[in-house]
């Protein structure tokens, strides 16, 4: 009985360790500096075309629970919202990789900490 309890505790503890600590992640991006960000800022930036014809929305759509479509290749992109795709935002490495790649694709530059955090906040709560 004790063994079962212990293994349950270990299991819960280990799954919690694996969950992403967003505050820590954000602090890493902003180098511990104070930055202003919000999910609503992320929403606003989402459809903003800094370069003509390209925004987050052009590939991912504005309803994050729905699949998107790559504007250059027509490839279907799985939904970003955790509501319809719980695998999203579960791996730090993937978050960093895709923010970097997609900011370069969309803005031809890397995103600022403010932009990155706002996007992730928008995705987390939509």
């Amino acid at each position, binding site marked *: 009985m004790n063994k079962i309890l212990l293994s349950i505790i270990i299991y819960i503890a280990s799954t919690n360790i694996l969950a992403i600590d967003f505050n820590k992640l954000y602090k890493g991006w902003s180098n511990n500096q104070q930055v202003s960000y919000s999910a609503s800022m992320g929403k606003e930036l989402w459809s903003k075309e800094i370069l003509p014809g390209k925004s987050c929305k052009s590939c991912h759509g504005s309803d994050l629970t729905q699949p998107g479509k790559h504007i*250059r*290749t*027509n490839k279907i*992109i799985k939904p970003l919202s955790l509501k319809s795709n719980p695998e999203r935002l579960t791996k730090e490495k993937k978050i*960093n990789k895709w923010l970097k790649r997609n900011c370069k*694709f969309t803005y031809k530059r890397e995103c600022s900490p403010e932009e990155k955090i706002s996007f992730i906040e928008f995705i987390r709560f939509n």
Partner: protein
Amino acid sequence: MTKKYISIGLFFVLIFAAIQSKSDYNLLNIFNKRGVQVIENTTYQEECGACHFDYQPGLLPERSWKKLMTNDELLNHFGEDVSFDDSSTANKIIKYLTLNAADKSSYNRSKKISRSLPSHQSPLRITNTPYIKRKHHGISKELITQQSVGSLSNCTACHNNAHKGDYDDDSVTIPNIKAGLISIELNTQKDGYVGIVKSTNESFKIISTKISSNLSVKKLCRVVSFKGNDEFSVRTYCKIKGGFWH
């Protein structure tokens, strides 16, 4: 005596080969595989297949993949920076692509692609290999550039089994193929025109023409009837100015 045994043996071998060649899955297929090899590499699928169709390695020769995966090329991958943060991932993909490249493959279509290519050429686009070019030669530009296709690099738009490495003609459906086949007539002929749909041999008649305007979009529409062997159908094709018939 031995001669007799040899001839009996040969007889059975021939019968076996004849039966095998008639069935879809036969032993001789080990030496004669159709299509291209399917993808069995999750790193490649996740890294490259996230943005575009995961083109099978057997669609380009080793020298092309090597060139495509150099740092310079990845920094400008058909206009996009897709460089890798960690070289171990990139190396895994390079290894997979080069080991399974068209010139290393025992699959028929891969062999054809590889053979069509002069050894001094290493194209970065599959659509620039002579075999693929030749295979898509007859398809009108309108059918390729229409919205649901876009370009020849969008394999899955028409090749329904592309993800299975099957690029057979039998599994191809080109969207709007009929409109493509009669587009010249739709553009130029008057009402009442009777013609034949190339390749299907159906006869068709342009019945009427009208302008449909929906909000600010004006469309030219033409009603066409088709008569096949024992089928009769009527369809309306519309297009915006400078666009394609749908």
